[in-house]
């Protein structure tokens, strides 16, 4: 039993289709009700795409697991109407300290940019996030959330997949136009379709402990390399809501997982770290090993993979849940357009193109951090320690830049995506085609609001100043004009600055809030071409 959280138990409800024995065809079946499967369901609901979610369990994540949620992830969740609740409950932080042996090596500040609705980073136990998402999905007419439903087999056909599902009432069969497998790093669906999941395995074992204590530590990320209380290994301390502190201990490659999970082993470790006799209680602990690997293709026939089922990263840098949410953010609008016949099936191929590229970027970052934290040879360990020693010198900022205790997750821009229309006009700044849109404060109907809340879920033409039309269409897909100065007011001028806009500047923005194309002047032919390109048409 947890002292700070009581786990909801979601009822198993026998489905009418299992009772009747009639095989039903569903448009979308999502396998796994973890954060990624639930995000996919929320996104499908937001797009009016009916879906069935199957989960073999009947509660939320046990233990804090994915703890850090970065700004872009929170922006996606805000589009799905759970972001505000997460930020309200979560612990927002931006400062951190890095220690080496018994000394403070340096401090950092994430320096979040002003004028964004969402904070740079929050910490929140995974079970809260899942609970909030299940709440948001409850009673949604388009979402059929089914607990105690375990997929045991998949057969692929040219235009659908057939799933064998086991429930407490036995097995039954269901059909799906498309399946999204969000069943985690040990995905059984991945094995069923015969996908390859390869990469680098790391031998080191880590202990995660959630500890309840009233501590006067500041709300910061603290990382120790080789501290006196845990020699030769690393330790990470993070604050979560409810006075729960998350502590990660590196245990080395030869640790005995079962032994290390025992409270009598964990409590002395935590006691040594705290260095005094303040009271604390152990809430949850787990021992894990990890790998950095990715699926060879995010799509197998009618089955699409998202989250840890598609890519597994090291925990340093909060890239697991954060990138998983960006998978479904990328996928659902494409699926909706293809299912409705508004975009060709080729649009689905861009899911692998864009998200495998992002996964590779994350894997690279994640492997680099892991190699720094757990050096694989005496020589690399010496270089690592040399960096940490140099970083203590106030004037050696270059060394602090080399210290890698996990680079915090930022979205990977799809700069080379086939959906982008490359710039023909001159632009400065970060908003290149393939980049997620920056937020900015705006005024709507005289009220203070945020730019990102005005876009998303559909194509938008952001027009700085008047545009000659109200919308541009390709086939049945329409991009509506959002006019700065009329629909939204950029009182602080931050929107124009972030988008390097001048009067007449036009941005074509995708339903997932990514820039597809931009121009210095309105040209309908070019916009239609760019819209077609963004649809793989």
């Amino acid at each position, binding site marked *: 039993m947890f002292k700070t959280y009581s786990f909801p138990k979601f009822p198993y409800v026998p489905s009418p289709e299992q009772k009747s024995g009639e095989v039903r065809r569903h448009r979308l079946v999502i396998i796994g009700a973890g954060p990624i499967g639930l995000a996919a369901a929320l996104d499908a609901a937001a797009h009016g795409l009916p879906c069935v979610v199957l989960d073999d369990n009947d509660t939320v994540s046990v233990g804090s697991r994915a703890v850090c949620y970065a700004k872009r992830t929170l922006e996606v969740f805000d589009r799905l109407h759970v972001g505000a609740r997460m930020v309200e409950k979560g612990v927002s932080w931006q400062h951190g300290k890095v220690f080496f042996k018994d000394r403070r090596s340096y401090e950092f500040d994430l320096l979040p940019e002003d004028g964004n609705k969402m904070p740079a980073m929050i910490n929140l136990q995974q079970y809260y996030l899942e609970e909030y998402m299940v709440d948001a999905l409850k009673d949604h007419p388009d979402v059929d959330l089914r607990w105690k439903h375990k997929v045991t087999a998949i057969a692929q056909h040219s235009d659908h997949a057939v799933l064998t599902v086991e429930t407490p009432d036995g097995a039954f069969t269901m059909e799906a136009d498309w399946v999204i497998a969000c069943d985690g790093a040990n995905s059984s669906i991945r094995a069923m379709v015969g996908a390859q999941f390869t990469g680098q395995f790391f031998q080191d074992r880590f202990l995660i402990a959630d500890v309840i204590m009233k501590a006067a530590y500041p709300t910061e990320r603290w990382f120790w390399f080789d501290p006196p209380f845990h020699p030769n290994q690393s330790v990470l301390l993070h604050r979560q809501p409810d006075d729960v502190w998350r502590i990660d201990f590196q245990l080395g490659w030869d640790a005995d997982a079962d032994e290390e999970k025992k409270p009598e082993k964990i409590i002395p470790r935590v006691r040594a770290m705290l260095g005094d006799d303040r009271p604390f209680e152990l809430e949850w602990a787990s021992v894990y090993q990890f790998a950095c690997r990715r699926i060879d293709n995010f799509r197998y026939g009618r089955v699409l993979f998202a989250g840890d089922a598609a890519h597994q990263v090291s925990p340093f840098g909060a890239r697991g849940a954060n990138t998983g949410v960006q998978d479904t953010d990328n996928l659902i609008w494409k699926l909706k357009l293809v299912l409705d016949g508004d975009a060709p099936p080729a649009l689905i191929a861009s899911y692998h193109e864009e998200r495998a590229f992002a996964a590779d970027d994350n894997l690279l970052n994640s492997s680099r951090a892991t190699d720094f934290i757990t050096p694989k040879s005496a020589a690399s360990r*010496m*270089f690592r*320690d*040399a*960096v940490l*020693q*140099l970083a203590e010198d106030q004037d050696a900022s*270059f*060394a602090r830049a*080399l210290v890698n205790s996990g680079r915090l997750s930022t979205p990977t821009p799809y700069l080379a995506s086939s959906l982008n229309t490359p710039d023909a006009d001159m632009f400065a700044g970060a908003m290149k085609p393939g980049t997620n849109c920056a937020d900015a404060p705006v005024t709507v109907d005289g009220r203070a609001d945020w730019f990102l809340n005005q876009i998303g879920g559909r194509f938008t033409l952001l027009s700085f100043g008047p545009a000659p039309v109200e919308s541009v269409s390709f086939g049945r897909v329409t991009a509506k004009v959002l006019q700065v100065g009329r629909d939204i007011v950029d009182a602080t001028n931050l929107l124009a600055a972030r988008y390097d806009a001048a009067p007449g500047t036009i941005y074509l923005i995708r339903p997932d809030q990514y820039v597809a194309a931009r121009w210095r002047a309105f040209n309908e032919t070019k916009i239609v071409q760019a819209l077609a390109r963004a649809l793989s048409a």
Partner: protein
Amino acid sequence: MDLKLTLNIADPDDFYRELIDSQRHMDSAQAAMMNCKLVLILANHVGDRAVIREALKRAGGAA
């Protein structure tokens, strides 16, 4: 800029003595640590990734 392999240091014999002397009181581990720091400091000073890459190769590092 290419990696310089012609003599670029004034009074090379004195430089060499200075280098060796700087580690005179160190055991092997201490000297190795100092060498690591020296590599990092000098690499940052050079900055040019192409030059550093060429130097890594010249020193016998894997490509």
